[in-house]
Every structure is written in C-alpha cells, then in structure tokens.
C-alpha cells in the first residue's frame, strides 16, 4: 500500500467512525430506516393478500381445466418503490448532512489546519472523506435492501430470483451514486460558506429545488395530469387519440422533459424504478433492454457524481486554508 493510499484509507476510516458518532445523523438514518421498513412491510403484507387471491384464482382456473390463465399482474420488486422514494428524498438530506458534518467538524474543532500541516494533500483528504461517506451510504443502502428483500420473502411469500437480485443491486449502486453527489454538495457548500450553517442552508435550498420542485413542475406540466382522472379520458380520447393530439405538443413536451432532466433525483428515480418494475411499461423487458433504455439516466447520474466529486477535490485542495468556524 502506498503512502498516499494509506493516508486516504486513514481519512476514510476517520470519516466513517466520526459519522456514526453524530447524534443527528443517527436520528435521520433511524427515521429513514423506520420509514422504509414500514413502507416495505405494509406493501409486503398487501402483496401477500393479493398473491393469495391470485393463487386462489389460478387454482380454481386449473381445477376447471382452463388452459389460458392470466399471468400474475403483481411485481414483487415494485414494493420497493416506497424505499426508493425515501432514499430519493430523505436519503439526499442525510447525504447533505453527512457532507456538512464532515467539513464543519474539522472547522469547529479547528483540526483542519492540523491535518493540512501533515503530508496530506487536499485531494487525498477529499478522496478519503468521499470513500468514508460511501461506506456509510453502502451500509445504509445494503441494510435497507436486505430488510426489503427479506420482508418480501417472509411476509410477501415471494423470494426474488437471482436476476432480480442483480437488478436490485444495480438500483442500489444508482442510489450510492445519487447519495454521493449530495454528499459532495453538502461538503462543498459548507467549505465555501463563511459560516458553516449557511452552507448547510444553501445545500438544503438546492436539494429542495432538485428533489422536490423540478420533478413537481415536470409532473404538473404533463398534459394528461391537468384534470383529476386524466384530461384525455375526460375528452373521450383513446390511446391513439392521445398520441395524435400529443404530436402537436412536441415543443411543449421537450420543455417539460428538459425541466425534469435538470433534476438529478428524476434520473435516479427513472433508473431505479425501471430496475424494480415500478413502471408497468418496463415490466415485459429484460435487463439489457432496460439498461439501454435508461442509458441516458445512467450517464447523467455518473456525470453529476463525477463533476461534484471533482468540485469537492478542488474545494479541499485550495491553496488558502479554509477558514475555521467557531464563535469568534
């Protein structure tokens, strides 16, 4: 192990351990885990009831000698939707908090100048902190996914297949990238703000826009969402009619899509939902088709994460030491 790698590992360990000692972070994580488990358990018990109904129907149909039995309309992975939405909303706040704590801890304790007086470069500090944060997120995501999958098996009575395990793993990796981007945002905003808490406020403002406002605008602008029950249905238009009308709205749709695509959260959501069968239109397709279909979202996720990490490295590598915090 090179000297540099050793230093990075050391910083990563420090980051991981310090994060677990933070009371507020632990409380936020507890809210996330409790909400996620709750949503999966509720979904799983409902799923068990629906699966039992379907099996009854299937047994009755087979007993009657029917050969054409409708396939199950249920998608077990779709029950993870609540968990993914919590990661999208609450997970991002946790990531920002972790980024904030990571920088403010060193500023408040005035340990940054001490660390910088050692042979530790800003890039090593950024990389180590980032890896430590990834460790926290990985623990969080894996624990959530495990609880989800086991709940689906035990309560929903449907154990997922190896290919579904792969798809859940890919959704988890996307979650990791998504959270790491928000971690960088929190850390950069805190490091650049004169008073750390102002950095936290700015990062939360960006979170509000990216995670809640932009996707909400995109949804609201959807032509079909203009009336409860759907505008096209209210006008008596079938699917062909809807498509015919929408050909006159290409510019409008482009603007709407553009607004949605500006949001990192929407890219994560689209990819994760595709992997977990949340959207019905994706359900008939295999993994390679889905990956191809969502390549745009994967690219955006990677780009956001990479750009923000580069910005973090740049911020922590600045020549002038970052101002310390404190009361004076």
């Amino acid at each position, binding site marked *: 192990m090179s000297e540099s790698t050793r230093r990075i590992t050391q910083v990563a360990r420090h980051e991981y351990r310090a994060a677990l000692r933070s*009371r*507020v972070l632990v*409380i*936020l994580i507890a*809210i996330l885990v409790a*909400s996620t488990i*709750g*949503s999966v358990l*509720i979904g799983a*018990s*409902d799923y068990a*009831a629906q699966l039992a109904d379907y099996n009854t129907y299937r047994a009755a149909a087979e007993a009657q000698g029917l050969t054409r039995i409708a396939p199950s309309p249920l998608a077990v992975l779709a029950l993870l*939707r*609540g968990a993914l*939405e*919590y990661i*999208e*909303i*609450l997970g991002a*706040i946790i990531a920002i*908090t972790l980024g*904030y704590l990571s920088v*403010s801890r060193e*500023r*408040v304790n005035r340990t940054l100048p001490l660390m910088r007086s050692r042979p530790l470069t800003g890039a090593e500090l950024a990389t180590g902190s980032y890896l430590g944060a990834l460790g926290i997120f990985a623990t969080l995501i894996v624990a959530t996914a495990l609880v989800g999958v086991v709940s689906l098996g035990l309560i929903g009575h449907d154990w997922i297949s190896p290919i579904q395990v792969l798809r859940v793993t890919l959704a988890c990796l996307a979650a990791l990238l998504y959270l790491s981007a928000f971690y960088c945002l929190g850390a950069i905003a805190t490091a650049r703000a004169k*008073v*750390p*808490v102002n950095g*936290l*406020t700015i990062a*939360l403002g960006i979170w*509000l826009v990216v995670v*809640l*406002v932009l*996707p*909400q*605008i995109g*949804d*609201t*602008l959807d*032509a079909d*969402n*203009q*009336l*409860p029950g759907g*505008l*096209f249905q*209210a*006008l*008596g*238009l079938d699917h062909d*009619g809807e498509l*015919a*009308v929408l050909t*006159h*709205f290409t510019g409008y749709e482009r603007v709407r899509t553009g607004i949605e695509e500006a949001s990192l959260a929407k890219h994560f*959501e689209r990819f994760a939902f595709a992997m977990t069968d949340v959207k019905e239109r994706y359900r008939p397709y295999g993994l390679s088709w889905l990956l191809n279909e969502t390549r745009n979202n994967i690219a955006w996720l990677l780009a956001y994460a990479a750009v923000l990490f580069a910005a973090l490295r740049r911020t922590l590598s600045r020549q002038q030491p970052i101002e310390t*915090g*404190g*009361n004076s």
Partner: protein
Amino acid sequence: MTATSTSGRAVIGTVSAQQALTFRRQRVRLIGVATLIMVTAMAGILGWSSHHTIVRVFDQAVQLQAAAGNPAPANPFLLKPSLSLLSNMVVYIPLIGALIALMVGHLAMAEDQTNGMGRLIFTRPIARTQYALGKILSAVRLLATALAGCWALSLVALLIVNRTLNGPDLARLTGFYALSWAYLVVFALIGMLTALLIRRRSLALLSAIAVWIVVTFVLPQFVSGLRPTQSLNPLSEPAGLSQGFFRITHLAQPISLVEGYKDAASSILRTTPATTAAETALSVLPTLIAAATLALLVLWRIQRHDYSRSASDE
C-alpha cells in the same frame, strides 16, 4: 434619566421591532418574501400553462372527434374550478413555505443564543414570556407580509387568466392564504422550539427539518398510504385504505397536519368536490391546535433555557 417600569406590551414591541430589523438587515425578509412571491408566480404560470394546454388539447380533440364523425366532447373547463389556477400553491406552501417558516423561526430564536445577546437581554428587567412573544410576533408578521404579497399576486394572476373574479372567489382566496398563514406559523414555532431545545445551531435546524419531513412525507404514508412523491402532486389520489392497517391508522389522520391542510385548502379553493363548512372547519382545527400547543411549548421552554452560555454557531 431613570429606568422606569417597562410595560409588557412595550417590551414585546421592542423585541419584535428589533427582530424585524434583523430580518431586514440579514435579508431574511427579502429572501423569504421573494421566494414565496416567486413560488406564487410559478404556480400562476403553471396554472396558466394548464389552462392553455387544456384549450389546445380540447381544440385538437374537437377536430379529431369531428374527423371521426363523433360529437364534440364536453368542454373540460366545466370540470376545472375557477381557483384551480392556484392548485399548485396547495403543494408549495407545505413544501417551500414550511421550510422558509422553519428558517424564520429558527433564526428568530437562535440568533440571540449564538451572538450572546441573550445574556445582555436577560440581565435587563424583562420577562422571558415577553421576549418570546416579541420573537413570535416578528416571525408571524414576516410570514403575514410574505403571504399578503402572494395574495396580491394571486389576485392579479386570476384576473389575467380568468378575466373575472367574483366576491365568493375573492373570499375563498383570502381564506386560503389565512389558512396557509396558520400552517406556516406552526412551522415557524417548530423552528423556534428546536432552537430552544438544541444548543448547536445546525443540529437544531436539522431537527426542525426532520420534523418537517415526518409531517410532510412520513405521516401521510402511515396514516393514509400516500407515497412520499404523492405529496408533490396537487391532485390527491384516493388513499390506500384497502388494508386493515390503514383502517386503523386512518383514525390518526388529524395528526397528519399536511393532509389536514391540503384537504382544508382544497375545499376552501373548491378544487375538490364540495365539502360542508363543518368538514372544512374540522380539517383546519388540527393546524390551529398545533399552533397553540407549540406556542405554549415555546413559552414554557424559554423559561428554562440557559442563556448564560452562548450557543455554538455550528
């Protein structure tokens, strides 16, 4: 020049005026008011866009149906209530407005702890209740100013898009902003209470945000089966009450403030099927009870707060 007995009202006024000045100088008022005004403008633009889209889709649908020899569909505007232009505000107030209110409440209470002014203030002959009331008054006024601006802008937007506004609609619009004000006051008080309970500023702020998350996203899921992202949709979908679980938890719906707010707001704006005045009042009640309870908690907590130590900036 002798120190005289200071009336309670004068102290409340002095504290409130000073906090208002702080809000102005630190641009909190500017940012808070401007953000809410921008949000209203955005809701207006989205409402106008919705209006415009319906017109265009309706025109296209009429042509399509005519080409197919079918009768023209019913005008969808008959299904669209006159104040639906503002339906997005019902989402933005609990999302953006509540976060701004949290910040306002937090700043009003945390600042004197951080800068050590609390030590100087409470070595003066003033009661802590008067001080807290002054702080609450300043936050409440700031939110009222912001919402008054939103009300005025909404009025303009409605007149531009709908071309007309009758008396009952004006009353409903005013009622909606009065309800929103009460809802935001709840969050300002949460910001104040967490600042009094937790000494480190960032932790106090994050705790207030955690409460907001629970109220806005978590409670609706457990009480009514609404997924987190459904909270972003102004068109509320029917709650998943098929399961026994929700039949039990639904009884706790009054504590789900955001649902109560949305229900009350929708019935005031008439963007949902008509409800009786009693039903609307009932859905407003939890917000009012929460505001009163939180105000009492702030008044209680401030008596015990240790102002001899200054809080950490972090």
